[in-house]
């Protein structure tokens, strides 16, 4: 990977979930950590997110949920990503994710899960590992 390349992280909410405070906060935190955040906001469809991943050449995708619809919508997105041959793009989930759903989400191919209590640092470490690109805020480790 080129040394100057920034992490391009696409953040979106799927379906009718409107509680965007968390994802907006994360967007600002990531920007301040040197990430290029492509923010899609709420009310996205799986097709829309897949198209955006492709045209933006996103390194990683973050989805936020505050309702229990995440298994359904994430499953749909992962299927559509596979159909477009972009399933290698890592997907992370944040928000109100129940620990008992984590195995099923992992089985769907979700790489990072950040429920209540997750720290910014955990997310940054995941981003750096999942994309193979450096983040200045993590120091030279």
């Amino acid at each position, binding site marked *: 990977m*080129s040394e*100057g*390349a*920034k992490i*391009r992280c696409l953040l979106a909410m799927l379906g009718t979930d409107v509680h965007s405070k968390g994802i907006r906060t994360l*967007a*600002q935190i*990531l*920007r*301040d*950590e*040197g*990430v*290029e*955040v*492509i*923010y*899609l*906001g709420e*009310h*996205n*469809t799986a*097709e*829309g*997110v897949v*198209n*955006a991943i*492709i*045209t*933006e*050449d996103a390194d990683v995708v973050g989805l936020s949920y505050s309702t229990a619809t995440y298994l359904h919508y994430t499953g749909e997105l992962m299927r559509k990503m596979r159909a477009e041959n*972009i399933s290698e793009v890592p997907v992370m989930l944040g928000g109100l994710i129940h620990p008992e759903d984590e195995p099923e989400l992992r089985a769907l191919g979700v790489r990072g899960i950040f429920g209540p209590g997750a720290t910014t640092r955990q997310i940054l470490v995941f981003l750096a590992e999942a994309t193979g690109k450096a983040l*200045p*805020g993590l120091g030279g480790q």
Partner: protein
Amino acid sequence: MDDLDTLYEAVRRGERRAAARLISQIEAGERAVAPLVRRLYQAGGATPVIGITGPPGAGKSTLADRLVGLWRQQGHSVAVLAVDPSSPLTGGALLGDRVRMGRHNADRGVFIRSMASRGCLGGLAGAAGDALIVLDAMGFGRILVETVGTGQNEIDILHHAGSVVIVQTPAGGDDVQAMKAGMLEIGDVFVVNKADLPGADRAVAQLRDSVAFRHHMAGPELWVPSVLKTQASDGSGVVALDAALSAHIAHFKDFPQAWARRQRLRAEGILVERLREILRERYRLGAAKPQRFACALDDVVARRADPYSAALALLGEGGLA
């Protein structure tokens, strides 16, 4: 070379992944893609490129969304390059223009790409220009490039647009003043957006005065910019804006010599900016520099040479002076 051919053909066929990855490589300043960009540039030039600029909050993205919707109705495929500022401190960016264009996300006839102004090694205008070369070669019906109209880098991008739309709001009496300082020269169509706000008619009248003043000696080959009111939130005025853009394109079909002059002037702007970016990057503080630079530096430190002469001598050796 085979890889290059394959990638060239893929971009020419409009393959989105290939093009999107190429744009990332351009942003990262990867020199290996230069021959490909050259070939794509040689093949391009057919797609109308519309630039849209104005102060933050003027409604550029919403207006862009409306134009894209209209062009899709007309049957055009559309590419959008949305440039947003990045943080000068961290280099990060929050690229949010797509929120206003969300209804086009699922439409494969629309290719939207966000670009951060400082994310590009070697300079924004160059990276955005090369990204536009890629989009141009993909065969879209329309290309729209959106930039915040502050800062020379952002304005330099507009050299790549055949038609430039300058957006402002009635609230910005000061915007009109600021625009006189340099934006008036580059606009082909001026838009007062948020026309439902008080002062819209006054802002339009002011702009018309300024435009008329600049063009009172105009011959028929000179394009006199249109001044329009829009309300991007409900779409009113957008059909008239599209018509003004079509008229601008048609005008230069009628006056090919004026078009050629204009293209040459813009190409000059692009070329000069690339030169500037290359030099800035090559000689930035901390960059690895050739031995002769160290020698020149020694001469300046010891006062054997003054900085200007030393710089000229360096350029001469690089074949640029």
